[in-house]
């Protein structure tokens, strides 16, 4: 993968919204165990 594509991915709000929600979901799940 080109560096410019990697930068575009990492600076994309479309990535970070789901990633943050996923992290929150994993934290919630782990706390329910």
């Amino acid at each position, binding site marked *: *993968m080109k560096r410019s594509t990697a930068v*575009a991915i990492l600076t994309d709000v479309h990535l970070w919204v789901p990633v943050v929600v996923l992290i929150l979901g994993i934290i919630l*799940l782990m706390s*329910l165990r």
Partner: protein
Amino acid sequence: MSGTLTHAETRSTLSLHKLGVFCGLAAAVWLGTAEAPTKLVNAGFSPFIISMGMVMGAFVARWTVPTLLKGTGFVFSDLRAKPHLIVWAVLAGMLWAVANTLTIFAVRNVGLAIAFPLWNTNSLVGLLWGCLLFKELRGAGFKGWSKVLGGAFAIVGGAAILAYATSQQSSNTPGKAAVGILAALGAGLLLGTMYIPYRKAYISGMNPLSFVTIFTLGELITVFILGGIFFGGLGNLTGELERARPMLFWPFLGGFCWVVGDLFQNFAAKYIGIGRGIPLSNTNQLWGLAWGALVFSELSGLSPTGKALVITGSLVMIAGALSISTATPPVSELTSWEQSMHRECDRYRLDADHVAAVVAGNDPLAGQPHRTRWWEVLVMCTAAGIFVWLALGTNVQQISVSIPWMIVLVIGTLVPLGVCGTLLWRRTRFS
């Protein structure tokens, strides 16, 4: 170029909105039907293992019928053209796996009546993200907003009434109620957010079959990691799966139906957006209810008030679906969708003309016949063989089943598959 035009000219002229609505409704039928086989599982198995069986079934099923529709060559070339979207497809699979595990906790702690409507709010979350991140409903006007928002709220409201009316389970442990509600809301948030990758993939011109391929992989890996954590190691998890072998066929069959439903849901998200497509496919509860009530006689002991609530909830849900179905996006909204598409093309250096053609259901490559390779046949036979192997010697729970209603519902499930599959082929060649 003339070849491309010839392909496009021979295609149906059905509007993409109508096609998306049909796909959303077909998704609801198949996602609802996916619940039916799991009812045949004997008691005594962890819901986590049943859910895991469905995920494994979905992964295997992806390599059966969908492989016939588009060769793997098409899928791999699609992925090579937009490799950045692999990240989002894996992410969507992970979101689904975590959300589904949360729903298990939610049902355990507060019962289906409270949990289901709470996680059904995912369509409202999806609608919010669609509007904020993909400019859906921008320029739709008051009428468009009212139809879509009103319809989405009606579907969630109908889900709440149905869940309340059909639940035999009450909130058991009061101390755990807050945790259950939190888990259900978390599942709704995760499922609603999962539609961000869906929409992103389709305004970038990705084919739903390519997306689902990577999605099921992300899903499978995540449930195995989660299963390993919850059962105290992969060894224990494997032991549980071996113990569950006699009933695994049923969740696998559910996974097969789920993959078909998910494919239709993806096509709906592509052609009418997540704001409209997801609430429509969330009417799957109606079909799950139809299987439960008509085939498994689950509502036979329901009071007259309960029956009245079931009818009310179903009508509210149908009214919501009708409202969304008639909310055709005006030109001003379609212009906003186009702006979102251009954002993706600029950001990831995609060919805007090609992407625009794919988004409009006119993928120039879609009509080309694909050569089936020997190893594709091998993969399909192996996948089908796994289903046959599981079916042999499988156990069935001794419950009464209405065969005439089962035949009616099986036909009612196959008809949308045939109709919608034909419409998709004629209009888009499954692009």
